[in-house]
C-alpha cells in the first residue's frame, strides 16, 4: 500500500481531458488505485473515466491517491508527478 497527497493545479479542475490522461496512466499499473478529494473518502477507482469525471473536482483541491499491489509505489509516484505537472507528459 502506498499513498500520497497532491494539489490539483490544473485550471479547469478534473475535467474530461485530464481525467482521460490520468486514467490511461493508472491503467499502465497492475495495482488497484483510488483517488479521493477528501481523506475520509469516498475513494474513487482511478481506472474509471466515468467515476472520476463524476467527482467534479475543482482546481486547487488536494487529491489523495492510494494504491495497493506490487507496483503501488511506482503508481502513486507516477500519478503525483502527472497531477503536479498539470497533466503534461502522460502516456501517448
Amino acid at each position, binding site marked *: 500500500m502506498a499513498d500520497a497527497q497532491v494539489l490539483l493545479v490544473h485550471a479547469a479542475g478534473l475535467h474530461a*481531458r485530464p481525467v482521460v490522461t490520468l486514467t490511461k496512466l493508472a491503467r499502465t499499473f497492475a495495482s488497484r488505485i483510488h483517488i479521493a478529494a477528501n481523506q475520509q473518502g469516498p475513494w474513487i477507482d482511478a481506472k474509471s473515466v466515468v467515476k472520476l469525471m463524476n467527482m467534479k473536482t475543482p482546481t486547487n483541491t488536494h487529491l489523495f491517491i492510494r494504491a495497493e499491489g506490487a507496483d503501488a509505489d511506482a503508481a502513486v509516484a507516477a500519478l503525483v508527478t502527472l497531477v503536479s505537472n498539470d497533466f503534461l507528459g502522460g502516456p501517448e
Partner: protein
Amino acid sequence: MSNVGIVIVSHSPDVAKGAADMVRQMVGQGIPLAWTGGSPAGGLGTSVEGILGAIDAAWSDAGVAILVDLGGAETNSEMAIEMLDPARQGKVVICNAPVVEGAVMAATEAWGGSDLATVKRTAEELNHED
C-alpha cells in the same frame, strides 16, 4: 495484445468525424478507430455499406464496439453486423451509450487492453451514473 476497435456512426458526418477527433485527441493513436455518417446521396443519414466499411477499417481480433446516435444508425448497424462474415459477427457489439461520451469512455477502456464486454460495459456505465 490487440485492442478493441471503436466505430462511430452518426446521421451527420460532421458529428461522426468530430467525435472521432475528440477520441484521437484525448485517447491517442493506440486504438483502431473509424467513423461513418451521412447518406450515400450526401445528406443526413446512415448506410449499411458505410458502417460495414467502418467496421472493416477499425477491425481488431479483440472485436469492435459501435457507438450510434439515433434510431436508424442502430438499425443499420444491426443490419451491418448481420451481413458480416459469421466468424466476425460475435465480435461486434453496439453500445447503448451517448455517441460522443460513449466513444471517449469506450476508447479509453480499449486503450487499456480490456476485452470487448468490458469496453461495452464501461461505455454503458454512463447510463447509470448521475
